């Protein structure tokens, strides 16, 4: 093979590779049950500093993606707070991730609903993309090994928390 042919083939391979990369990176699929969750650190919504899901290994975590402009997020927030008050502790926590939202609006939301569980900030929506969310709210129950055990695309209800989430937590049924 001549040098010219080799370069031509190399160019075509590079172009096809670039196109494939573009397609794959755009179409990232969502997390499935049993998959390990991404643990890129995120800034805390209040108080400064960073946190990642890896910091919660050994605990059950209900990751709740939300935004202050999202009406269903407002509807589920009181239920999540009640659930946190009932079950929150060394073995479990709700973890809010405020996604594609203004930080000041996010902080106002937390105050408005008196949310006591930890809150992280995902301003550019990268974490939401890594989880494969299609919008807000979305909820992921993560087991102590960092794997997805339950997945709720859309607002979570008090009934679902009681019937599906609570039985899995340390201490069993609520």
């Amino acid at each position: 093979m001549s040098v010219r042919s080799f370069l031509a083939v190399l160019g075509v391979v590079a172009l096809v590779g670039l196109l494939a990369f573009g397609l794959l990176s755009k179409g990232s699929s969502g997390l499935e049950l049993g998959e390990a969750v991404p643990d890129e650190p995120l800034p805390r919504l209040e108080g400064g500093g960073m946190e990642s899901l890896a910091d919660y290994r050994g605990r059950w975590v209900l990751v709740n993606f939300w935004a202050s402009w999202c009406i269903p997020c407002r509807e589920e927030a009181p239920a999540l707070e009640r659930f946190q008050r009932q079950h929150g502790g060394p073995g479990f926590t709700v973890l809010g991730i405020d996604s594609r939202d203004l930080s000041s609006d996010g902080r106002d939301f937390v105050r408005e609903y008196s949310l006591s569980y930890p809150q992280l900030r995902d301003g550019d929506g990268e974490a939401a993309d890594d989880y494969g969310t299609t919008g807000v709210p979305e909820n992921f129950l993560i087991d102590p090994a960092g794997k997805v055990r339950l997945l709720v695309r859309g607002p979570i209800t008090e009934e679902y928390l009681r019937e599906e989430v609570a039985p899995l937590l340390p201490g069993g049924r609520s």
Partner: protein
Amino acid sequence: MKIRLVLLALAAFALLAPTALAAEPRVTLAEIEEEVMCPVCGTLLQLAEAPQAQREKAFISRLIEEGKSEEQIKDALVAEYGDEVLATPKGSGFSLSAYVVPIVAFLVAAIALAIGVLRWRRAGRGPRDRGGKRGPKGPSPEDADRLDADLARYDL
């Protein structure tokens, strides 16, 4: 007394005028809206009506009222939503490649085209044009005689 009052008024104006000018909006919401994105909708902010877009517009309006410049407002938006909020990439860092790559690609294509044309033109010339040996020979003497005989038959 009057002179003193006039001087006092002038001094007050000199002190307050720059502040008043600085407080004047330097950019409009419409100007910013056509240069930034609604991150949730994936469209220009000026085309978006989603609740998130409304919050973003209110945020920009607030910054305009505070007298922030276009650059300061864009920086604040990037701090909130990341680089993807900008409709056009920044002219620094990795984003610079969005401007540099097309230019480099154009230059490479132009050079390749120029080389191709030169080679094509060179290949198109006969060896005689390049001062080399004679090209294909003309008709043989027999053929030339026959051609002359044929032509002689016609009374042109």
